[in-house]
């Protein structure tokens, strides 16, 4: 019987199209691609205006737009300013931009320095660490007032240490591999994408386009909702206003008028807390960048706590203060505001921010920190 050795592979057609480049042509293509991908984000910064005023805060619709956050940091994180960094408490979830903590500090402080609102609504310490690391690189060599909200240690779920998977805010900012977050169950492939995107400026810029101009969805999904629209026309270079309130307009009334009940959180021990470890990492990161850091702890709405939980919370505050002291970080543990100045467990109302600002400015440690040239920590 005859066995044949076929050389059929030598006659295999290349393809059913003409897209075939030589190595020289590939070099040209790659050079153009690289130039476009590198230059686009840079050029974009010059053509897309970012109108930053004194009471500016990141527009709510851009809360997930870390590219814009990086631009805001570059604009506002200057030696003449104190960057006020934190979650929705700093951002001002229940108030307008001119009613936030940083706005009141600007209004009440007669000194030459300004306080810049670099808060992000919905962020938590684990995500804040990522935000500062990858998108807050401009926070270097400047003064930072960092807010520590103990709400994020009020339960294993808030602390991200529950096992059951759930959708939490800002997953692209949290550690993708180490330390392992039990409730974060994205596939490895997706985590790798997220982790590598942090080092690619055009990835952040592409995400910016998606968030700012395409309703935070992919182009395909956007076209499904706008079948006859020209995607290019949607890119208006007009960013949302910082005065736009959150989509679900917050109920800016005292918590007591909203029927919110007292609660007893299952406080997580600091040594076991992922969020506390992340908060510490943020402090260290900033200090490693030659930033002077001042931590504002609270003010948590202690009126909402049950007696037993209040006792635990008091201990937690003392522990935090002690840890900050050990680190040599100046801090102020805010006294609880009057009950009717809270909208919920941790967010003050407008008058609450004013009172908080007054108390902060009355703090000797903070006055030393905020003075031009600042004193030793």
């Amino acid at each position: 019987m005859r066995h044949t050795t076929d050389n059929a592979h030598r006659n295999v057609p290349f393809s059913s199209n003409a897209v075939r480049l030589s190595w020289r042509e590939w070099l040209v293509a790659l050079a153009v691609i690289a130039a476009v991908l590198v230059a686009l984000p840079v050029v974009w910064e010059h053509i897309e205006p970012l109108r930053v005023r004194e009471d500016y805060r990141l527009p709510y619709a851009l809360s997930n737009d870390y590219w814009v956050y990086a631009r805001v940091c570059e604009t506002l994180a200057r030696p003449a300013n104190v960057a006020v960094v934190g979650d929705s408490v700093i951002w001002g979830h229940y108030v307008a931009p001119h009613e936030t903590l940083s706005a009141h500090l600007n209004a009440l402080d007669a000194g030459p320095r300004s306080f810049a609102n670099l808060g992000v609504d919905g962020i938590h310490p684990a995500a804040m660490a990522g935000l500062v690391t990858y998108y807050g690189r401009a926070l270097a060599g400047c003064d930072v007032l960092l807010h520590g909200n103990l709400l994020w240690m009020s339960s294993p779920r808030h602390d991200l240490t529950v096992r059951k998977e759930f959708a939490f805010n800002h997953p692209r900012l949290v550690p993708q591999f180490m330390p392992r977050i039990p409730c974060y169950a994205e596939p490895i492939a997706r985590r790798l994408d997220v982790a590598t995107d942090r080092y690619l400026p055009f990835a952040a810029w592409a995400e910016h386009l998606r968030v700012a101009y395409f309703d935070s969805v992919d182009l395909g999904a956007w076209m499904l909702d706008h079948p006859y629209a020209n995607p290019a026309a949607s890119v208006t270079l007009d960013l949302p206003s910082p005065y736009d309130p959150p989509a679900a307009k917050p109920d800016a009334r005292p918590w007591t008028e909203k029927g919110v009940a007292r609660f007893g959180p299952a406080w997580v021990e600091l040594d076991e807390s992922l969020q506390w470890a992340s908060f510490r990492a943020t402090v260290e990161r900033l200090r490693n960048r030659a930033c002077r850091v001042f931590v504002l702890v609270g003010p948590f709405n202690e009126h909402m706590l049950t007696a037993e939980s209040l006792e635990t919370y008091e201990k937690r505050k003392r522990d935090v203060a002690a840890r900050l002291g050990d680190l040599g970080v100046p801090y102020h543990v805010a006294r609880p505001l009057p009950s009717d100045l809270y909208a919920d467990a941790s967010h003050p109302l407008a008058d609450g921010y004013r009172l908080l600002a007054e108390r902060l400015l009355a703090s000797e440690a903070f006055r030393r920190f905020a003075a031009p040239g600042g004193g030793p920590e």
Partner: protein
Amino acid sequence: MLFQTRIFMLFFVVVYAVYLAVRRTRFRIPWLLAASYFFYACWEPSYLVLLVWVTAIDYLAVLLMDRTRWRRLWLVLSIVNNLSLLGFFKYGEFAVESLNAVLVHVGVPVAIPPPGALLPEGLAYVLPVGISFYVFQSMSYTIDFYRGKVERETSFIRYAAFVSLFPRLAAGPIERARNLLPQLRRTPTLHLDDVTDGASLFVVGFFKKVALADGLALYVNKVYAAPQQFGAAALLLATVAFGWQIYFDFSGYTDMARGIARAMGLRLMLNFNNPYLATGLGDFWKRWHISLSTWFRDYVYIPLGGNRRGEARTYLNMAATMVISGLWHGAAWTFVLWGAVHAAGYALTRRLEANAFYRERVPAFVKRLWVFVFVTFAWIFFRADSFADAWTILSRICTAGWTDPAFPLLLLAVVAGVWLYQRLFESRLRRVLALTPVRIAMVIAMVIIVVLFAGGGGQEFIYFQF
């Protein structure tokens, strides 16, 4: 690992770097095999056993065919083994459900247990990725050896690498031993052209999958999920969109697979050749999933007699081949019907092309149009979740009102542009497409679009479910 993900790219960088270092040594094939098994195990490690089992049985079958007189016995062993595995994992549940439905219908109070009950505890009854492809590929080797068309592969490792080669493991092409084994035997002479050609193929495939297929899928899935809620225009456009989606999805996968293999100096067969330019159903099947259609031609149609036993028998053989081909695609009666529809279409084409007027006077664009319409009509059965859905779609296309389909115009323009490109490629104006600025501009545009605007890029390929 999906080709369009970064984790695959990381995997490939490592595999390729080592491959380059060992390609002239005896470690080349073991390294390819190890990489391929690792690649497969990333989906479901326990089903690696099946892949090794199929490989071992067929290797042994050919060895015994070569060394004993009972050639047919070992061939039958190979075929039975391969088809049994395929039958169990792919059609077991379908068969049991169908039989149980019949038993209920005739009033027999007995239910056949599901096939998953036969598996060891802890092993899930799922369709192993790629089983339809690697089983057919391995079976073609034993059949070809029996027919004297290929030499026996003496190295088990090399044969295992042939069966499991990772670029084509999950969804083809279904390679023939006489194409791939000689390449694995030779020490590859890797030229820069192999790398650049591989990159060109990969970029095109990547664009087709991530930018086009996944984009069309959004509309198709929305409409086909609830066909009774959409009008005629939307259903029609969704069907047309599905025809293009599955083309971009599958040909995109194949392009990437061929590109990866080419970068390693291996040439896999062309699997799609602009099928929507076909001027007849026979022509369509010479352009669509070529590796599968030629497999069925060589191992089903021709053994049944092909076209050598008269006209009636030719149509019967074709019908049987197409129905089996439909069944290969999925364990559902809708796939069988899809195959039957294509058989009918093929018969019609054959009759028409026997007519001189049709053959010589009817313009090619008319032929292309009716073939496209016919194939699109057949896709309804392929894509619909059930007969009921297929009937709903068909009837609503004919009777429901012509409401706004809300189909993304930009996607429509892009698909039209792709068709026009393919048309030009097969015309005298091909040289325009081959101009250097055009080729370079296309690559730049594709890469930028994918990098900037495509979604997460992690949607599975349609043919993985087969």
